[in-house]
């Protein structure tokens, strides 16, 4: 009885891992896109995903099979991102007066210099998206999350409200505020490309 039972348990554990991996594989692109647009760079995006994937795996038994895995995963990523940002912004307050710009510039220059080894597609994409991502980076985490979920990931107000556990009116006002900040920052860029 004992050995058969544990054999059965380890087989269902294998099945679970298998299922989890397959679902993850199915949605790699959306998962990475969300993490990248939230964090604004590759390293932080990858960190955020790694942590979130483990969180998801640990609570995978509570995931309702047949419901949307991508949305479940994106929910975990978004909430982890907001939590991290809250923790980080407490530290940030102390160093607000110090010029952090130059550090960021260096990093950006380094990244651009490194670009020559990347496939041409990525080089082009970076040039295209730079202003959008830089504008997003300047938004507060709560606004950024709502804007990215709505305008990049295509979630409805109700879905975002459920995801972030906030009233739908909060989603509406955060989206309005976030988009209007972006509008001011991106006006020239967006007008040039998208305004008829």
């Amino acid at each position, binding site marked *: 009885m*004992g050995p058969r039972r544990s054999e059965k348990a380890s087989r269902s554990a294998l099945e679970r891992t298998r299922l989890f991996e397959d679902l*993850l594989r199915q949605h790699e692109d959306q998962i*990475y*896109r969300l993490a990248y647009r939230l964090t604004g760079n590759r390293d932080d995006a990858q960190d955020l995903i790694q942590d979130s994937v*483990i969180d998801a795996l640990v609570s995978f038994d509570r995931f309702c099979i047949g419901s949307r895995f991508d949305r479940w995963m994106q929910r975990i990523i978004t909430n982890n991102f907001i939590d991290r940002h809250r923790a980080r912004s407490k530290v940030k307050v102390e160093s607000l007066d110090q010029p952090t710009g130059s550090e960021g510039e260096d990093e950006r220059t380094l990244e651009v210099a490194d670009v020559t080894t990347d496939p041409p597609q990525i080089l082009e994409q970076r040039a295209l998206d730079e202003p*959008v991502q830089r504008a997003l980076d300047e938004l507060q985490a709560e606004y950024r999350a709502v804007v990215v979920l*709505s305008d990049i990931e295509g979630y409805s107000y109700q879905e975002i409200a459920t995801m972030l556990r906030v009233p739908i009116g909060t989603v509406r006002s955060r989206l309005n505020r976030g*988009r*209007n900040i972006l509008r001011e920052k991106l006006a020239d860029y*967006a007008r040039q490309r998208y305004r008829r």
Partner: protein
Amino acid sequence: MRFRPCDWVGEHLSAYLDEALSGREMRQVAAHLITCHACRGALDDLRATKQALQGAEMPRPAPDFWPEVYAQVRQKSVSLPAPGISRSTWRAQLAGVWTVPRALATAAAMAAMLLLSILTRPTAPPASAPDDLGEFIAQHAQHSTAYPLSDWSRMMFIGSEANAPATVPVADESGNAP
């Protein structure tokens, strides 16, 4: 040039863009937009901004990123409780206070049963040997139910020499005395 929308409309432009206002509010904003240049300009910029976001390209991680994630998943899976096992049971299992003792307990229980069956096994016919075979068989059945593991010895008893006297009375009853 930056447009500064009017207060009330400015707060609703984003939802207007998504058609996420009530019918009445949609009409109110639309009516205002006909006459207000600033709000119209802000709406157009807002729309262009939304389109810029929607048109953002699919970013790509480092090529070895996902393989690393899957390796991590497999590594972590090993330390997770098997599906359907409660966390406390799993913790007990991990702490080793469940699996090993359970095996030991099973072995101990089997040993105890064996010992019990030996101790309770009738070494001779029941103190008051039944006089007829029917009653003996009934008693045997009863005993076997109570002590299933002793059944084998009972069967041996039935077929043994010691059992012979029990059949004698039957022969006696038939009137063929030895």
